[in-house]
């Protein structure tokens, strides 16, 4: 279907709505990577087969991830005139049971997670109530999405369509207000007005730097040179972070529409999306979205009859973390090795092929259509003084509720960990939140009232980064954490400049000494000054921010470093060379479980007699500690 005018767009919307909320039942299976990893494909196949075999009146469709990843695979049931009901932790067997209920004309009750009374539809005139009247019986008792701790504080703006639409279906995207913002920008706004709106909205880059997007666009618009390039950074590489992947897999057209609006504002007709090859589903989803948009005329020449032309290509990243850095990314697109260059001349002036270029991250682009559709003032009402709008975080680590969380800027660390994340496991204590990816920082419990926004995090020595969040409890050793992130960065350093290539390696060597009880307080000072040297001296942001995990742990957990160095103790009992396992005779009832488990034969003893551990043979693997049910194995 060609979409070349507002009439076409309206028609597409009517068609899309009929698919989103058809006059017949609909089953939605969450099939982003998180769902697929949990087994969603088999669930989908089963339901699809059943529906075909039994000539079911309804439809079975796939959708993206709504964020509550730890409950995947998710199945949603949308029955006309009823709230949408979500079922969690599905398997083919459970899906079969669900099907039986459904086929018998009942609303299934098992595995239910939540119900949705209202579809927010922020871009399309607002909330759509899914049923009329009062709920009775089972459905009235099911908690609403907004009653779940996980969703209570959330507000989905960038993720507005994730978990609602079939990502491969252009009409469904249009049905929720998609491409109307593009139409508004092309027909009622000048490029400068678009830039003004993005600036007024206060949108800052979601890829990590937090640079004001409007300012970036304005300097690229002003730059001399032709052609100009509009680029999307989808080379998400932080360990444990998958916001961009989910956005692409759940709602690719929001990124395309954002880029189209940006290209119009900047005066560009060519663009690239640089996406990791390790994201096969995201790559396929983008390919399909680009093809669909091109077929509909939403990419190409004379878009929506406005005279504006733009098209884009996909470029697959070869697996280097540093290619997420803007100049390395551009070098990679050019076919050169992915190495950064100095940015004293900005990429807005000389970027890709030395032409003016504007690079924004996936999440930044996904926010753009909302700003145009709802207006800058609507957008700037959300968030804090210096950080407007919402931010998606991937909440992982030692926390109960793991998943993607989109919250207004300014939510505190405590709210994030306790309320949304459900806290750390019962017998543990929250110790620190690692935020901002491998070059982010660790924020301690004492600071957990800190609002999460660009400037507060920066002042605390961490950074927003792309939005990875790792919750750590008291079983985590901060020296070990610093080692872990340095290992990652050493692996990913391109090796061009000396501070990053050799400096990080030396930092790692110093940490290794600390974690084996060697080193001195002078070495701690050396580590500090080397960290500063790497920060100041490195060529790009990878090296420039790589010391952050060391600097923040030194700042907030110095006594833990000192415990290693001065007392040869690892307080969290992690660093192998500093811990010993012992058996407390009073607690040991002689069950021999540890005797059988020990791979070294270091534990001896007969049944019903307290066992003894020969520390000379012990390799500190912790197997005895794990297997003992009586707390008789102690580690210190």
């Amino acid at each position, binding site marked *: 279907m060609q979409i070349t005018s507002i009439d076409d767009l309206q028609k597409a919307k009517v068609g899309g709505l009929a698919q989103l909320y058809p006059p017949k039942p609909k089953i939605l299976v969450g099939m982003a990577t998180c769902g697929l990893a949990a087994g969603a494909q088999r669930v989908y196949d089963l339901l699809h087969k059943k529906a075909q075999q039994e000539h079911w009146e309804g439809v079975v469709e796939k959708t993206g991830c709504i964020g509550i990843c730890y409950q995947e695979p998710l199945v949603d049931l949308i029955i006309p005139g009823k709230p949408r009901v979500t079922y969690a932790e599905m398997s083919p067997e459970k899906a079969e049971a669900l099907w039986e209920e459904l086929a018998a004309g009942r609303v299934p009750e098992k595995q239910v997670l939540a119900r949705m009374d209202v579809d927010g539809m922020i871009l399309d005139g607002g909330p759509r109530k899914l049923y009329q009247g009062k709920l009775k019986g089972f459905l009235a008792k099911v908690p609403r999405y907004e009653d779940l701790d996980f969703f209570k504080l959330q507000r989905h703006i960038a993720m507005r369509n994730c978990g609602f639409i079939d990502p491969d279906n252009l009409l469904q995207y249009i049905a929720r207000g998609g491409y109307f913002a593009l139409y508004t920008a092309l027909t009622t706004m000048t490029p400068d007005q678009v830039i003004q709106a993005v600036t007024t909205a206060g949108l800052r880059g979601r890829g990590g730097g937090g640079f004001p997007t409007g300012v970036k666009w304005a300097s690229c618009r002003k730059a001399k040179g032709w052609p100009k390039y509009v680029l999307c950074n989808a080379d998400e590489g932080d360990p444990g972070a998958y916001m961009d992947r989910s956005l692409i897999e759940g709602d690719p057209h929001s990124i395309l529409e954002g880029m189209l609006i940006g290209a119009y504002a900047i005066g560009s007709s060519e663009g690239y999306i640089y996406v990791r090859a390790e994201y096969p589903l995201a790559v396929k989803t983008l390919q399909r979205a680009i093809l669909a948009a091109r077929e509909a005329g939403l990419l190409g020449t004379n878009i929506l009859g406005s005279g504006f032309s733009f098209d884009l290509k996909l470029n697959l990243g070869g697996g*280097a973390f540093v290619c997420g850095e803007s100049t390395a990314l551009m070098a990679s697109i050019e076919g050169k*090795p992915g190495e950064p*260059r*100095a940015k*004293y*001349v900005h990429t807005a002036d000389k970027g890709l092929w030395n032409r003016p270029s504007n690079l924004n991250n996936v999440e930044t682009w996904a926010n753009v259509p909302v700003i145009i559709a709802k207006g800058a003032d609507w957008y700037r009402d959300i968030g804090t003084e210096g950080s407007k709008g919402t931010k998606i975080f991937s909440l992982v680590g030692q926390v109960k509720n793991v998943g993607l969380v989109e919250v207004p800027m300014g939510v505190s660390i405590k709210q994030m960990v306790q309320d949304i994340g459900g806290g750390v496991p019962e017998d543990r204590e929250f110790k620190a939140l690692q935020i901002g990816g491998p070059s982010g920082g660790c924020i301690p419990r004492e600071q957990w009232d800190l609002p999460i926004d660009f400037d507060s995090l920066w002042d605390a020595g961490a950074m927003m980064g792309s939005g990875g969040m790792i919750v750590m409890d008291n079983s985590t050793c901060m020296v070990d954490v610093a080692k872990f992130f340095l290992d990652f960065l*050493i*692996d*990913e*350093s*391109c*090796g*061009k*400049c*000396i*501070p990053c*290539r*050799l*400096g990080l*390696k*030396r930092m790692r*060597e110093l940490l290794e000494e600390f974690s084996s009880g060697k080193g001195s307080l002078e070495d701690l000072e050396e580590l500090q*000054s*080397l960290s*500063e*040297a*790497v920060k*100041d*001296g*490195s*060529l790009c942001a990878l090296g420039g921010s790589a010391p952050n995990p060391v600097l923040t742990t030194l700042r907030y957990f110095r006594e833990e470093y000192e415990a290693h160095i001065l007392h040869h103790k690892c307080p969290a009992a992690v660093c192998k060379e500093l811990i010993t396992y012992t058996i407390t005779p009073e607690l040991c009832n002689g069950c021999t479980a540890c005797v059988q488990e020990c791979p070294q034969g270091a534990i001896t003893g007969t049944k019903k007699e307290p066992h003894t551990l020969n520390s000379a043979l012990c390799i500190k693997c912790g197997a005895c500690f794990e297997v003992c049910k009586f707390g008789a194995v102690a580690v210190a």
Partner: protein
Amino acid sequence: MITFSINGQEVGGEEGWTVLDVARWHGIEIPTLCHHEAMEPFGACRLCAVEVDDGRRTRVVISCMYPIREGIKVQTETPRVANVRRWIAQLLLDESPQAPNIQELAKSFGVTPSRFKKTGVESACHLCGLCIRACQEVVGVQALTFGNRGVLKEVTSPYHRRSQDCIRCGTCLYVCPTGAMEQIFPLVSSE
């Protein structure tokens, strides 16, 4: 003419010059390692770091690539700059303790070998890229390239095969500041 200051002294240069160009013109000493007049600046060694106040903020930049701008204030010997340079000298010395020019550099910073030793291949190559850039920019062929990344990064020939583009001119041997090319040359040059 663009005027600005280095260490409080008023200096000037032409559009397109770098801070290092102007400093050298005025006889102001800034150490370099990967820099060579005959080649484009590369920015790998970071030894030519200086601190620049551009009116908005003060930061450490490298003088070999930083384009001069009206009114900036450049300082070549601040504590931050000294810390960066000292550490580079220390790290290089520990990597290639035998190379004469590295020893000289280390001496000028008062740096002595630390207890950390380089493990693996003994080579005094510190990846300044002069050989590769000379081959490409001066000789006009691409017989040399970087291979691998991070601590494994190396100077090699394309695809690790002895290059057929090599004309055995020896320019790489000549520009190599540490003599490491002597070891690499037989592996990469044409037969």
